[in-house]
């Protein structure tokens, strides 16, 4: 069955693992799920950022270009306007000059103008015509007039090539000229192609006309010639072309040396260097005739601005184009901005990518960890399972081994054989104990441990535990008694407020106490081990008062420790938790004794309520090193590795104790000072039970303390108040009223020298218990005197019994004690109520007057007491046998139940069961290995006794 369970368990674990794995799959994040896309996304991002940067750059560049274009346009327009203005000024002035010529040359007679006048005037008014390199006046000469004209002027009319002019219809020889163009005097303007056209057009329109650009005579610069007609008579208001031609007297012309003049003009303007200006004549469009600027185009061809020029001649059209001299410089701002954007984008992309990669990695790690965690947990569970199984498997044969060893020891053995067998048995027991502990731990860890709830006597359990360790502690005390005045002591004290019977799990409670006391015994070489049980509330109140005293009065403990090196503890050694020093201890022990009366009332009132107990185990051992204090309750961990070498043990006990205490609804804690000692304390909640159950218990408890001592009075002589209180506690349990005095002297005085007097006011003790220390400290003389006194007073018949209390005593000391009057007995510590009772019975001669079974043979009285009230299960398939066995057991007062088969027995034995013992026939037909083992396990776990019966074989 166990195997099946394990299988199903494993299966459930596996299912859980699967679920968790599925859970982790579901737990993948978006990033994790799309991890393969990450590089692609990064690339996409980079491309997007590049495009974005490019857009930014383009945008900024376009702005620049627009601005540049605007600048160019405005500059160009400005130049065009200026040129135009200058031109029109010049034209106007030529117009004025024409009027001047007509006025002073033709209307005056004789003419008021000759060459000199003209030259001077034009030279002096040259500033008015900045664009004109020079002006000249050519007279209209008809061929018929030529000879007359040539004669008049003394020269012949020449062509442009400076040859005498051939005969034409008419001529236009220059008669006046500005000095700058004096070389054209006498030249026939009509002989030049451009000039002739100009002249014809000008006299027909009456307006200034311009030639197309051509190389000027003289300077060979590009230029245009402006021609203005001069009429000899006043024209009608709207003259026709013929009328104009008729009236024409001559022509005023001026050469615009555009190249140099525009150069000059532009030189005056800002930004001259930056732009290239071209001026074209576009009359015969699309044939562009350049007027200014280079024919071959260089500079920035991409950007061009054209401005219209109007030089006042409607026939001619002119155009100014402007270009930047240099190509637009790359815009650094745009470039850097775009680049920065790109870099930032790149970085952001990279950071995001890095983060995503990191997330992916972290998640991968996380999933890996989770898987490992699941596996570790599974492994842990498997480990526990394995440990439990193996422990169990080991335990079964171990029980066999131990049983067989016990049987072997019962046979006749030689001393060597016995020694070997005993050693084997001790080892086996140690092993079983260890396995039980491990099994316990696993059980607790698996939450399978359930606590019993049965009424039990806490004091008797403590007594039991104490007796378990008494031998050990006494041995330790011996080791140091020569050096130390105080001996190793083991004592227990239970506050009176703690109810006598509590409901809980006595086995587990005992286990905790045993463990703690065992540890203390292990680690304590001198001093004391003191187990105290109080009600939790009381203990708390005590701590509070302790705080108060600390706050108010300062610490008198420190004064104590520095001064006398003697502490008010059980053995006088310093304890780790000074809460247990006498000052505090007294506080509540007094309270205990004071509130005796109220206890019963209280227990009645709180009959069904829970009670919180606080148990302290105080020792004066080696303490726990500070660095190890944190892991005291961890399983399998000891203070250091040398601990197990020195003291043995597995280090599992405390962790089990901790678990058990927690199961009992309490907490465990400790205070430890290295080289001073440790105090472990734990709280546990127990139920209190009602009176009737209490009575039942009383009946069942075979070892109930004898009640024959009630009302006796005792005097405890002990200098150590804590120790005395412990003694008083044990006496009180026996119903003995005890008084404490600190020395024999005081004892003597309390009894009084005069018996007759003392009986009135003071107690006459029946027993005097003297602590060995108090006796040894040199007062034996006093005691003898006191003995004598008492005898003299005639109280011999009721002399108090003198009892010596000692942890250990040597033979010589014992003799001495006898001599000193302690002839009655010596009670060896640690004190236990039952032991004290036995000693007192012996001393007081009460004898064993325990009521025996009526009419029973003496031999069976033991059986009677052993079996009375016990619940016993008898298992046998044979009805007759069963009946006989049941009858026999019933005879001795046992409460018998029967089962006819192993299976039925198993059902009855399911934990928690009520049986104290089980008698079983192991030769039943269905008594197979499984049933056998199960029974064995159950009985083994529940501290019951199992008897395997071979019925009458």
């Amino acid at each position, binding site marked *: 069955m166990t195997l099946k369970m394990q299988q199903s368990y494993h299966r459930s674990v596996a299912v859980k693992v699967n679920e968790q794995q599925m859970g982790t799959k579901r737990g993948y994040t978006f990033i994790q799920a799309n991890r393969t896309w990450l590089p692609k996304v990064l690339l996409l991002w980079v491309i997007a950022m590049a495009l974005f940067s490019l857009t930014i750059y383009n945008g900024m560049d376009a702005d620049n270009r627009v601005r540049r274009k605007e600048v160019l346009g405005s500059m160009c327009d400005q130049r065009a306007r200026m040129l135009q203005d200058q031109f029109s000024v010049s034209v106007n002035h030529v117009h004025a000059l024409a009027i001047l010529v007509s006025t002073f040359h033709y209307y005056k007679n004789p003419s008021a103008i000759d060459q000199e006048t003209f030259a001077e005037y034009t030279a002096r008014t040259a500033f008015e015509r900045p664009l004109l390199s020079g002006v000249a006046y050519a007279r209209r000469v008809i061929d018929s007039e030529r000879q007359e004209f040539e004669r008049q002027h003394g020269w012949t009319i020449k062509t442009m090539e400076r040859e005498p002019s051939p005969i034409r219809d008419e001529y236009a020889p220059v008669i006046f000229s500005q000095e700058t163009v004096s070389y054209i005097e006498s030249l026939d303007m009509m002989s030049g192609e451009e000039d002739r056209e100009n002249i014809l057009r000008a006299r027909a329109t009456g307006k200034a006309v311009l030639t197309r650009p051509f190389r000027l005579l003289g300077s060979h610069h590009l230029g245009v010639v402006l021609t203005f007609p001069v009429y000899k008579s006043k024209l009608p208001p709207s003259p026709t072309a013929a009328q104009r031609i008729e009236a024409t007297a001559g022509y005023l012309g001026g050469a615009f040396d555009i190249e140099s003049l525009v150069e000059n003009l532009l030189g005056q303007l800002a930004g001259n260097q930056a732009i290239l200006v071209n001026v074209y004549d576009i009359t015969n469009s699309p044939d562009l005739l350049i007027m200014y600027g280079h024919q071959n185009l260089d500079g920035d061809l991409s950007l061009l601005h054209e401005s219209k020029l109007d030089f006042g001649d409607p026939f001619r059209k002119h155009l100014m184009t402007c270009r930047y001299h240099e190509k637009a410089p790359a815009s650094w701002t745009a470039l850097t901005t775009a680049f920065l954007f790109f870099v930032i984008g790149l970085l952001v992309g990279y950071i995001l990518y890095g983060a995503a990669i990191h997330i992916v990695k972290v998640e991968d790690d996380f999933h890996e960890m989770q898987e490992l965690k699941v596996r570790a947990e599974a492994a842990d569970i498997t480990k526990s399972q394995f440990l439990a199984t193996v422990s169990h498997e080991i335990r079964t044969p171990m029980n066999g081994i131990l049983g067989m060893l016990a049987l072997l020891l019962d046979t006749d053995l030689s001393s060597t054989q016995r020694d070997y067998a005993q050693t084997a048995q001790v080892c086996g027991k140690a092993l079983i104990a260890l396995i039980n502990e491990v099994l316990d731990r696993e059980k607790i860890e698996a939450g399978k441990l359930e606590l019993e709830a049965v009424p039990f006597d806490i004091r008797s359990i403590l007594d039991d535990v104490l007796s378990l360790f008494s031998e050990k502690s006494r041995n330790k005390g011996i080791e140091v008694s020569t050096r130390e005045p105080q001996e190793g002591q083991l004592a227990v004290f239970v506050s009176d407020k703690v109810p006598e019977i509590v409901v809980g799990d006595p086995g587990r409670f005992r286990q905790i106490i045993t463990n703690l006391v065992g540890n203390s015994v292990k680690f304590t070489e001198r001093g004391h081990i003191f187990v105290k049980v109080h009600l939790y509330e009381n203990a708390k109140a005590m701590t509070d008062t302790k705080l108060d005293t600390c706050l108010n009065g300062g610490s008198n403990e420190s004064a104590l420790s520095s001064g006398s090196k003697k502490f008010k503890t059980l053995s006088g050694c310093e304890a780790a938790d000074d809460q247990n020093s006498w000052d505090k201890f007294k506080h509540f022990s007094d309270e205990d004794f004071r509130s005796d009366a109220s206890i019963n009332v209280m227990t009645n009132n709180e009959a069904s309520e829970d009670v919180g107990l606080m148990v302290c185990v105080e020792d004066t051992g080696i303490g726990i090193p500070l660095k190890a204090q944190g892991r005291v309750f961890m399983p399998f961990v000891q203070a250091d590795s040398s601990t197990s070498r020195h003291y043995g043990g597995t280090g599992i006990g405390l962790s089990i104790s901790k678990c058990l205490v927690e199961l009992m609804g309490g907490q465990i804690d400790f205070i430890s000072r290295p080289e001073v000692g440790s105090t472990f304390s734990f709280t546990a909640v127990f139920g209190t039970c009602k009176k009737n159950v209490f009575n039942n218990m009383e009946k069942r408890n075979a070892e109930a303390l004898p009640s024959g001592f009630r009302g006796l009075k005792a005097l405890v002589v002990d200098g150590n108040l804590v120790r005395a209180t412990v003694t008083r506690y044990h006496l009180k349990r026996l119903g003995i009223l005890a008084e404490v005095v600190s020395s024999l002297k005081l004892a003597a005085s309390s009894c009084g020298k005069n018996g007759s007097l003392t009986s009135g006011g003071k107690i006459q003790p029946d027993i005097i218990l003297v602590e060995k220390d108090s006796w040894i400290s040199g007062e034996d003389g006093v005691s003898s005197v006191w003995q004598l006194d008492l005898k003299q007073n005639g109280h011999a018949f009721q002399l108090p019994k003198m009892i010596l209390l000692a942890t250990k005593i040597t033979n010589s000391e014992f003799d001495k004690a006898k001599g000193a009057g302690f002839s009655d007995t010596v009670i060896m510590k640690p004190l236990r109520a039952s032991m004290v009772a036995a000693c007192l019975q012996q001393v007081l001669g009460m004898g064993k007057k325990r009521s025996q079974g009526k009419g029973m043979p003496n031999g069976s009285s033991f059986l009677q007491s052993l079996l009375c009230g016990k619940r016993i299960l008898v298992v046998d398939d*044979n*009805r*007759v*046998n069963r*009946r*006989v066995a049941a009858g026999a057991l019933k005879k001795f007062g046992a409460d018998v139940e029967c089962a006819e088969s192993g299976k039925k027995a198993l059902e009855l034995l399911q934990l928690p069961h009520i049986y104290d013992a089980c008698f079983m026939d192991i030769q039943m037909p269905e008594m197979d290995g499984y049933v056998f083992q199960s029974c064995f396990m159950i009985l083994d776990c529940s501290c019951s006794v199992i008897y395997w019966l071979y*019925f*009458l074989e």
Partner: protein
Amino acid sequence: MDSVVLLQRQLVDYTAQLFNEGFLDDQFNQLQQLQDESNPDFVVEVVTLFFEDSERLLNELAKALEQQSIDYRKIDAHVHQLKGSSSSIGAQRVQKVCIAFRNYCEERNIEGCQKCLQQVKNEYSLVKTKLETLFKLEQQVLAAGGSIPWPMQ
């Protein structure tokens, strides 16, 4: 009163005879000691149980031995039972035959087994008759107002 004493005497004699002839052993004595005021019919109860059990077992045994293929384990178990209960009440002779029976059973000796079954049947009917007589005598003593002089030491 005489009749009571006589009856008592008869009872004691008869019991002593049973012990002497080996029908009963000390176990029966023990059984009688277990009987007290709180459990006055203990011996009769147990012996009646024994009768019922034994008859059932004997029937089973007879049936088992008639089978074609004999299940010795089953027979052994039955004989073991019979041995257990007979020793419980102290029917010594039945018990002894049972031991022999088990030995044959172990040897798979069918003839021995059949022989033993006959013997056990004989012994059982003998001891049954004896015990019934004994109980009858006890009844008579009680009816006559006497007490049964148990336990015999």
